[in-house]
């Protein structure tokens, strides 16, 4: 006590005075007197105005782009929502004028055919994309890129016709495999072109650093390029899957349709006509029976939900944090 009194009794030194004064100043507005006009977003500046207008424009356009999605989803829910239930997954398609029923076999069929098509196209497409990104200028690469671009415009019905000639006629009957092949023809160009694009976007310095450390080309691809490009590749794969799941025309000539489960005599038979959601929607939406039409809309909802789930699962795989 007596110490602090003794300190207080001493007159303040110059340093202390200055310190006190600085503190007093600091307590006042430190930025008093500074003109802030330059640091604020002012609408009177043309450049800022331009930027803000464009921001609003882009926001508006995105909202407009979302409206059809909600409109379509609303239509599906309104027209088919009443059918949603477990029966859809466990029952077979109903006959005309029959009530109830479901499309469990169509769900299984779509999953199997799109699954097989993905298994075929993803290795084929991604590795071709790797090749294209690495050997960008060679003649072979040019030819492949050119062919892939031509294939983007391939009408879906012709993919079915081709698979009919190549597989259905060769094996003597409609089958899920033929359907999967037809779908792969449609998925392939998307996967090739997006993989190439994604891998080409990996910064060159990462590739060079990996090689500089003594990695072989293959190790570079597997440990550096593919993981970094994975989000882009996955986008391509998801777009391809979404398209394949919804295509009807190719399946009409290859997998036809079936009103029964995919298994006969207790095992899965891939070499027989297979039901699919897309063909079910096509068939049922065109029938003059209310039950069928409602089931078609419900099937469309289930299809969209399936693709969404696949999308989310795929994204959980690509949760890679990349240090750049």
């Amino acid at each position, binding site marked *: 006590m007596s110490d602090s009194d003794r300190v207080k009794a001493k007159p303040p030194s110059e340093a202390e005075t200055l310190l006190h004064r600085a503190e007093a100043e600091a307590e006042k507005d430190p930025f008093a007197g500074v003109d802030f006009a330059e640091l604020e977003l002012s609408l009177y500046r043309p450049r800022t105005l331009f930027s803000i207008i464009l921001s609003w424009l882009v926001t508006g356009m995105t909202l407009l782009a979302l409206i059809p999605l909600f*409109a379509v989803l609303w239509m599906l829910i309104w027209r088919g929502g009443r059918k949603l239930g477990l029966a859809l997954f466990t029952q077979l398609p109903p006959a005309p004028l029959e009530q109830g029923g479901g499309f469990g076999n169509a769900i299984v069929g779509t999953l199997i055919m799109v699954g097989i098509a993905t298994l075929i196209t993803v290795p084929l497409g991604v590795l071709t994309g790797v090749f294209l990104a690495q050997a960008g200028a060679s003649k072979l690469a040019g030819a492949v890129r050119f062919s892939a671009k031509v294939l983007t415009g391939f*009408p879906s019905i012709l993919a079915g016709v081709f698979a009919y000639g190549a597989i259905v006629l060769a094996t003597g009957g409609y089958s899920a495999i033929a359907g999967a092949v037809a779908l792969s023809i449609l998925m392939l160009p998307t996967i090739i072109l997006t993989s190439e694009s994604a891998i080409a976007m990996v910064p060159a310095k990462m590739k060079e650093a990996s090689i500089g450390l003594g990695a072989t080309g293959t190790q570079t691809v597997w440990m550096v390029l593919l993981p970094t490009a994975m989000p882009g590749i996955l986008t391509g794969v998801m777009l391809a899957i979404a398209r394949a799941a919804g295509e009807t025309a190719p399946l009409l000539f290859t997998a036809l349709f079936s009103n029964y489960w995919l298994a006969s005599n207790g095992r899965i038979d891939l070499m027989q006509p297979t039901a699919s959601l897309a063909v079910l929607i096509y068939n049922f939406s065109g029938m003059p029976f209310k039950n069928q039409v409602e089931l078609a809309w419900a099937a469309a909802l289930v299809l969209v939900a399936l693709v969404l789930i696949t999308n989310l699962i795929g994204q959980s795989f690509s949760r890679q944090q990349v240090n750049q």
Partner: protein
Amino acid sequence: MTSVPGTTRLEDEAAWHVGQTWQPPSKAQRWIDVLFRRLCVGFAALTIVLIALLVFEIAVKAIPAFREHGLSFLYQATWDPNKGTYGILPEIWGTLYTSLLALFFGSAFGIAAAVFLSEGYLGEAVFKILKNFNLHFHPFWGKLPDRLEVLLKNLIELLAAVPSVVYGLWGLFVVIPLIRPGCNWLHAQFGWFPLFSTDLSGPGILPAVFVLSIMILPTITAISRDALISVPPKLRMAAYGLGATRWETILGVLLPTASRGIFGGVVLAFGRALGETMALAMLVGNANRLTVSLFSPANTLAALLANSFPEAGAKEIPVLMYAALVLLAITLVVNMFGALVLERAAAKSEAK
């Protein structure tokens, strides 16, 4: 810290086991390298073989039709299976017209949505709202901006998941009745303008273009967004550091840098628009006439194929295959044209 830049800690540990990359590759690793390279080349060659096979099969089937009709097929305008006269000029025009229009609108909205997603507007807005309630560092609410961004991205990609048949039905039942009054008013007021010169009696070019742009939009958005996001952050920061506003960086730095990727997305979307079968077969009106009017029905090559194939007899199939070849040729020509345009633009910007 990882020993190989660009890999995660997990990858780093894998490197210990898969191959110790700070030493020269072992014999096994070199073998694997050679095999893998050969595999990649093999797959690429397989792709070419596949496409060559496709084109070959179609061409072979189309030969009888080519012999019979020759090039007149391309510039005649009547399609009459009864009399044996086939001409696909209206379909060629319809395909180009609808696809280019859809591409224009789809790209405009698609790239806008991609910019919206990559700039993170939604996240920022939600963050500002949360900040008002001081929740922006909350364990649950704080994650909301990121979660909403992911949700938005998935919603737009969901547009790609709707089957084309459903789009066709939506167009028939919802879009056409919705736009009919407006279009007929436009026709009544501005009928002299070639784009509005007929009235909308049902399916037509405008509903088809509308639905087609919605179908190709997710492709453009998803791929453009990826391209925009992979622009190195340094470029963006450098632009801001130089005092550019947000949109000056987007227009001057980000979009040009991402243009390769965005163009790739546009190419894919255009291909999709050209080959779209089901939705257009329901919505374009299937009338074999050459017209510029947005409200009149027209026909496209893919829709013609979709409509004629199921019932085509042996005589019609070669003709349809010929039409398919023409469609592939169109895809080719427009892609080459686009690549040329891009090259010119790139040369110009590099010359600067």
